[in-house]
């Protein structure tokens, strides 16, 4: 009896990785899933923060995919090692701060490491030649194999017939003839295969799976690096970029203004780490000050805070400024008018 081979599948939560894993399972291979959490993954976060989204059904699509497939899923925290990928991408960025090719090399490399540690035989991804992003171009696919170190242990079942045979195909662990030759941006072949396999209700994220592909998010990240003269970051930094309005009235500080109750609650968790402001005479948002604000700056910050509360048309609003040492003081300010809020302050 031949040995049952084991493959580890990169599971993003999208349709392609679901189909790729299933195609290999169809050939009797034992498959387990890996999902890497970089801190920039779209899954879950803003749903968890904003109150208006709380009634929507929430699910982690990678877990959902694993459950549909009936496989184990290992979610790996790669926040720290991912910093080097983002900060020093050998192949550069895409349209925004998305280092897609370096990211794919990194993830396949991590999967290779996991594969070796757990005595698995090969790696599966849902890549399709010619599909976005940059890492799936025909000329970049060999780069992923080479730079990740996976070489021909990397199988892309959805477009395998468009690529040279890999070791699992040559050795007969899997039958190349039962793999696919999808290419290009059309999603029709994937939808047809999903139907054949009986998958419904799968995720089709319009903006990809990563915040770094988002123009607004990338702008906030670049602004943070520029203001700090340092391109490093912590998980809390990148979480806060997903929350609230970000307003930089002066180069040395910005305000993070909660937009609704859920965001205010989330920002409350950071009260001990930031000077923060809140209107006490009217209802209004919680506002964190990121940076070092002088006394004059604090007054301006209070006026902006008042602008976003129910007292925005009042003659005077009382704002409580809370310091990190637990002390506080009250400021009486006139809210800034709409005209005084400069467009370029909004990040």
């Amino acid at each position: 009896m031949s040995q049952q081979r084991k493959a580890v599948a990169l599971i993003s939560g999208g349709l392609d990785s679901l189909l790729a894993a299933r195609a290999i399972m169809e050939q009797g291979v034992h498959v387990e899933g890996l999902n890497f959490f970089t801190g920039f993954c779209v899954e879950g976060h803003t749903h968890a923060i904003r109150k208006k989204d709380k009634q929507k059904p929430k699910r982690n699509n990678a877990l959902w995919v694993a459950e549909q497939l009936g496989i184990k899923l290992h979610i790996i925290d790669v926040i720290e090692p991912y910093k080097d990928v983002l900060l020093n991408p050998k192949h550069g960025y895409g349209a925004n701060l998305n280092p897609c090719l370096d990211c794919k090399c990194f993830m396949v490399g991590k999967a290779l490491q996991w594969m070796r540690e757990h005595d698995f035989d090969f790696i599966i991804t849902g890549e399709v030649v010619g599909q976005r992003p940059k890492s799936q171009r025909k000329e970049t696919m060999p780069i992923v194999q080479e730079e990740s170190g996976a070489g021909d242990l990397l199988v892309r079942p959805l477009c395998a017939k468009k690529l040279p045979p890999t070791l699992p195909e040559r050795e007969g662990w899997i039958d190349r003839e039962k793999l696919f030759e999808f290419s290009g941006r059309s999603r029709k072949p994937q939808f047809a295969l999903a139907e054949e396999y009986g998958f419904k209700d799968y995720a089709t994220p319009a903006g990809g799976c990563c915040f770094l592909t988002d123009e607004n998010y990338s702008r906030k990240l670049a602004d943070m690096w520029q203001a700090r003269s340092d391109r490093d970051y912590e998980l809390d930094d990148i979480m806060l970029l997903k929350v609230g309005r970000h307003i930089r009235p002066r180069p040395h500080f910005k305000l993070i203004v909660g937009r609704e109750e859920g965001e205010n609650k989330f920002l409350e968790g950071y009260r001990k780490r930031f000077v923060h402001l809140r209107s006490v005479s009217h209802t209004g948002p919680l506002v964190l000050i990121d940076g070092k604000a002088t006394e004059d700056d604090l007054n301006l910050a209070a006026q902006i805070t008042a602008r976003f509360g129910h007292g925005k048309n009042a003659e005077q609003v009382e704002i409580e400024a809370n310091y990190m040492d637990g002390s506080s003081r009250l400021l009486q300010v006139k809210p800034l008018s709409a005209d005084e809020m400069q467009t370029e302050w909004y990040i």
Partner: protein
Amino acid sequence: MVYLDARRLLCPMPVIRTQDTVNKLAPGEQVEIVCTDPGALNDIPAWCRINGHKVINTQQQDDEIIIIIEVGDGT
């Protein structure tokens, strides 16, 4: 019972912390996870179903979610 404080963490971090805790425990041991992200109410039970662990209880108290799970034998 092992206690895991996953408050203020957003999914999937509560799942990752749960996974890392469970990986150090023997079958039959229990973990009490306290979270504030409502996504954990779906994600932790889903992770348990996939990986062969058992959810003993889930409850919500104000803004906190408490999930008790029992470590399975890995099958």
